[in-house]
């Protein structure tokens, strides 16, 4: 890959991302709408639910960042990869000096960039309108964000690579996505959920992402984040390596 082919490919993948509509909608418009809607209802005064320490928006903004990661990692990533695979788009790129691996690399890069841009928008809007509290250190928050991306993207890649049929991979990614955004605290706080759902939520990777992001945003000690860190690092390793093995076996040719 040359600088020329990298930047042109990036430009095209960004265009495709925007034209896809669902991705930018769920990555930017939806979380912004959620902030404005719930913000107008609950405001950001510290309340009983969060021990009078945090306001609803303080809790919601990092959770929505978790949702943004899920949109791009569990929806956009596997849906687009399997679409290119089933329609034999990758095959066409394999018949050029670029090769499909470089295209996949740029796709992942662009979706990661989409997470960072969307997260920045969500955080800045939350800060401008509701003056959300970010007590945490950015030198901790940013690595936490990147670890979260790594784990969730690895999971999305795993889903795309493990199923032989692209259609099944797509159905699985929808199911995992919707389960996670509703039951992990990414869009609705777990604090309001019944106990059995909270137990179930603990097996969802996104719950750990939300915990980690909320914890680091609010300046909790790293030692309190150990569960989330171990789960996410483990998920990255397991999904990443099995995904890579399955990809190498099938090659998407």
């Amino acid at each position, binding site marked *: 890959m*040359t600088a*020329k*082919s990298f*930047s*042109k*490919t990036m430009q*095209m993948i960004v*265009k*495709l991302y925007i*034209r*896809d509509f669902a991705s930018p909608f769920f990555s930017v418009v939806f979380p912004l709408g959620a902030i404005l809607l719930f913000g107008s209802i609950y405001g950001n005064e510290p309340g009983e639910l969060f021990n009078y320490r945090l306001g609803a928006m303080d809790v919601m903004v990092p959770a929505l960042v978790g949702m943004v990661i899920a949109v791009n990692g569990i929806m956009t990533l596997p849906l687009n990869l399997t*679409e*290119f695979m089933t*329609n*034999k*788009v990758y*095959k*066409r790129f*394999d*018949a*050029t*000096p*670029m*090769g499909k691996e470089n295209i996949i690399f740029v796709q992942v890069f662009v979706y990661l960039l989409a997470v960072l841009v969307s997260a920045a928008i969500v955080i800045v809007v939350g800060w401008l309108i509701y003056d959300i509290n970010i007590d945490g250190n950015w030198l901790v928050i940013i690595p936490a964000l990147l670890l979260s991306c790594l784990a969730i993207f690895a999971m999305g890649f795993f889903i795309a690579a493990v199923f032989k049929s692209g259609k099944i991979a797509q159905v699985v990614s929808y199911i995992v996505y919707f389960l996670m955004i509703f039951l992990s605290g990414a869009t609705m706080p777990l604090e309001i959920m019944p106990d059995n759902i909270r137990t179930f939520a603990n097996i969802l990777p996104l719950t750990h992402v939300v915990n980690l992001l909320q914890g680091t945003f609010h300046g909790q000690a790293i030692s309190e984040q150990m569960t989330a860190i171990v789960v996410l690092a483990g998920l990255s390793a397991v999904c990443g390596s099995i995904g890579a093995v399955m990809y190498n076996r099938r090659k998407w*040719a």
Partner: protein
Amino acid sequence: MSILAKVENLRVQYGSNVAVNDISFEISAGEIVAVIGSNGCGKTSAMECLGGLRNPGGGAVAVFGKDPRNERKEIYHELGVQLQESAYPEKIKVGEICDWFSSFYENPVAYEKLLAQFGLADKAKSYVSKLSGGQRQRLSILLAMLGRPKLLILDELTTGLDPEARRGIWEILKVIKSGGIGVLLVSHYMDEVENLADRIIFMQSGKIFFTGTLGELQSFAQENLPAEKWNADMRLEDIYLAFAPEQKAIALGELL
């Protein structure tokens, strides 16, 4: 003449189905070689092995002296292909895909000129998914030529094209050939093969049944066809049909 690509004892197998069974051929600079044969006789499978897109089950393939499986990206700097089975992203425009593919090559042809030559100039801003079948086919051929290849592999190049576009592409291929480029094309149109091919590779159920010039095929037909089937002014299509496997006769009445 330098040899651009070489296939030796190539085999391709899908499960127990042997699609390509021990074929060998080569293609040199400045020649057009046409591969003909019935549906399913293994043409596409063989082309995809040449392009490094499919693993041979046996034998050796070399393109520019390199193994296309191991050095695929390198060979594609000088190899252009139009695949029978492949697609472009749904939401991309004609001009964009040309621009995108151009970025893969060091010294690409100005695609605006090619678009005009292929009758697609007014389609540059249309989505690829909105093109007609023939227009998409033209785009595929255009993209195959974008990187100034030394070898062009075209699998069913004029399928779906109108007669004028077909002639246009023949002219382009003749110009390309005179520039020393090798062309390997798969075609079901015998007039096209007669018009373009320096050599013909005639495949039947995974094997090369005949290879040589049109004149040599005519002599081959004279020697090998039963006297009642042969006559002096047989065209390529007649010879093809005389050798093609018999289609099982169906009682046409059953269709009604």
